[in-house]
């Protein structure tokens, strides 16, 4: 599904990613762990095409199609979804309007029919109920005045409605208390399927107790320096990232 080869990227001329190799097959969940400043968020922005994150070498493809040449919205239509570490506030645009506009834009791009208003409302109601989001909240401007936990829940709600194929979760557990973490994780786990791949980016092992990864990779100084099974996350929790900092 997702294949990253020798990926190099710079931000403002400064090299951040220095040769990443990573393959995430369909149906698998891979965790990317690493110390602050390792390049975790940069990887998520490079995969989604944010301006200012310049690829200097290497490739990234989804089902064989080169992602890096595509505009951000085209990548989204192909099924790439980023759950932002800090979701944006969009004043004046109700959450429902925002998600419906996005869904229909993706459908148009894929040559699918747009959703009708009743269909969409049904989808939204179901997703909100599953995430214990008060439906009235979806009539408010997206994320404006929402708490950290509410914003993360809105990210998962968008995932549930947009049904992406590749999910990138950037520090989705940050700012969540234990109850919110459970709700958000359940929401993500409900989306696990043989057609989807997930990349879970996190600093702490805590989230991985809820979203069990198939593989764990350690990102340090812009490279994958170690890979292993779920047990690697536990080891990192115990020993920290020191040995990788020295190695790199």
């Amino acid at each position, binding site marked *: 599904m997702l294949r990253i080869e020798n990926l190099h990227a710079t931000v403002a001329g400064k090299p951040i990613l220095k040769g990443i190799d990573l393959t995430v097959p369909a149906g698998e969940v891979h965790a990317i762990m690493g110390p602050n400043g390792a390049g975790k968020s940069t990887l998520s922005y490079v995969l989604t095409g944010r301006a200012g994150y310049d690829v200097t070498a290497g490739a990234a493809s989804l089902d064989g199609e080169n992602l890096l040449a595509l505009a951000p*919205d085209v990548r989204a239509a192909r099924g790439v*979804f980023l759950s932002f570490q800090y979701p944006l506030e*969009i004043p004046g645009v109700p959450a429902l309007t*925002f998600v419906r506009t*996005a869904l229909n834009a993706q459908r148009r791009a894929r040559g699918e029919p747009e959703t009708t208003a009743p269909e969409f409302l049904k989808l939204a109601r179901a997703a909100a109920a599953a995430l214990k989001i008060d439906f009235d909240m979806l009539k408010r401007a997206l994320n404006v005045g929402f708490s950290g936990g509410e914003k993360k829940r809105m990210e998962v709600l968008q995932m549930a409605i947009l049904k992406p194929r590749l999910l990138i979760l950037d520090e989705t557990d940050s700012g969540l208390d234990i109850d919110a973490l459970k709700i958000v994780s359940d929401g993500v786990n409900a989306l696990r399927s043989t057609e989807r791949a997930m990349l879970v980016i996190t600093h702490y092992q805590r989230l991985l107790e809820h979203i069990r990864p198939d593989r764990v990779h350690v990102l340090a100084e812009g490279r994958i320096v170690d890979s292993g099974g779920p047990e690697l996350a536990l080891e990192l929790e115990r020993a920290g990232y020191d040995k990788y900092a020295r190695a790199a």
Partner: protein
Amino acid sequence: MTLAAAIRTGDVSLLPGRRDEAWRWTDLRGLLRALPPLSQPFTGEVGAGPFDALGGATCALLNGGAGEIVAQAGDNKIAALRLLSRGIGRHAVKVSIVVGRGATLRLLESYESDAASVSQSLLTFDLAEGAVVERIVLADDHADAVTVSQAEVRLAPGAAFSQTLLTSGARRQRIETRIAHPGGHAAVRLDGVYVLADKRHADLTTVVAHEGLDGVTRQLTKGVVRDQARAVFQGRIMVSRGADRTEARMAHHALILSDRAEVDAKPELEIYADDVVCAHGNTVGALDEDALFYARQRGMPDDVARAMLTEAFLGEVVDRIGLEAARDVARAWVVRRLEARS
């Protein structure tokens, strides 16, 4: 130096220009080397007005003239005021609006010109105690027209005046509102929206003079400029000596959507009393790149994302319109104007 005097006499040297501080950004003298002839009376069909669907009596003034709109004490009514210019000519208009004690008037005002006319209008509003006026102005002028609209508003204590201006500009256009605010729990809301393209120009100028205790003023103006358009916002809040416990807030936010468009702003506070809370905020810039990326990551193409964010940006002002049917007209107008060219 007024446009009214120049229209009356045909003397261009009477036009206000760049050297007049209040007209520094809306130079009429430098623009008009000559004035068109006085407008001829027009007797043809004028067509539908933008607020026809909302009902209420219509006062239509064609190529000049004078009118009066009265709401008697206790009335609750909707009135439409259409200021029409047909053909190339110059003319001035005077309208007096009188609202009695406790009366409510929703005034739906439109400026409709179809050629390079030069026009000036003066509206006077007199609000008795407890009177409520909501004024909604839709200025859809011809690209070659030069217009100045001036409103002078006098409020009695306890009266409420709110207004929303919507304009797409003209060759030169100024919409000026001057309010004598008596305090005494009278309330003023002054909002504006501009959507300017091509070489159009719009100048939204307001002066609110707080003259008594306990006055409240809220101002929110937002706009977008494209191409080589130019927007001017001049907002002045004065608080006279003794006008204590005045609370006045003014905000102006503009988006510049092209490299050659321009926004000039002068949000001014002139305070002679000490027990006041006054504030203004002004921002000029482009659409927020982070918000744009967020929307595109969710799958919206660039133009869809920009249109959504721009409409939402202006929507905040439109949402403050009290009369629901007028709000719908305003919202549709904004969407149409934004789509007019992109």
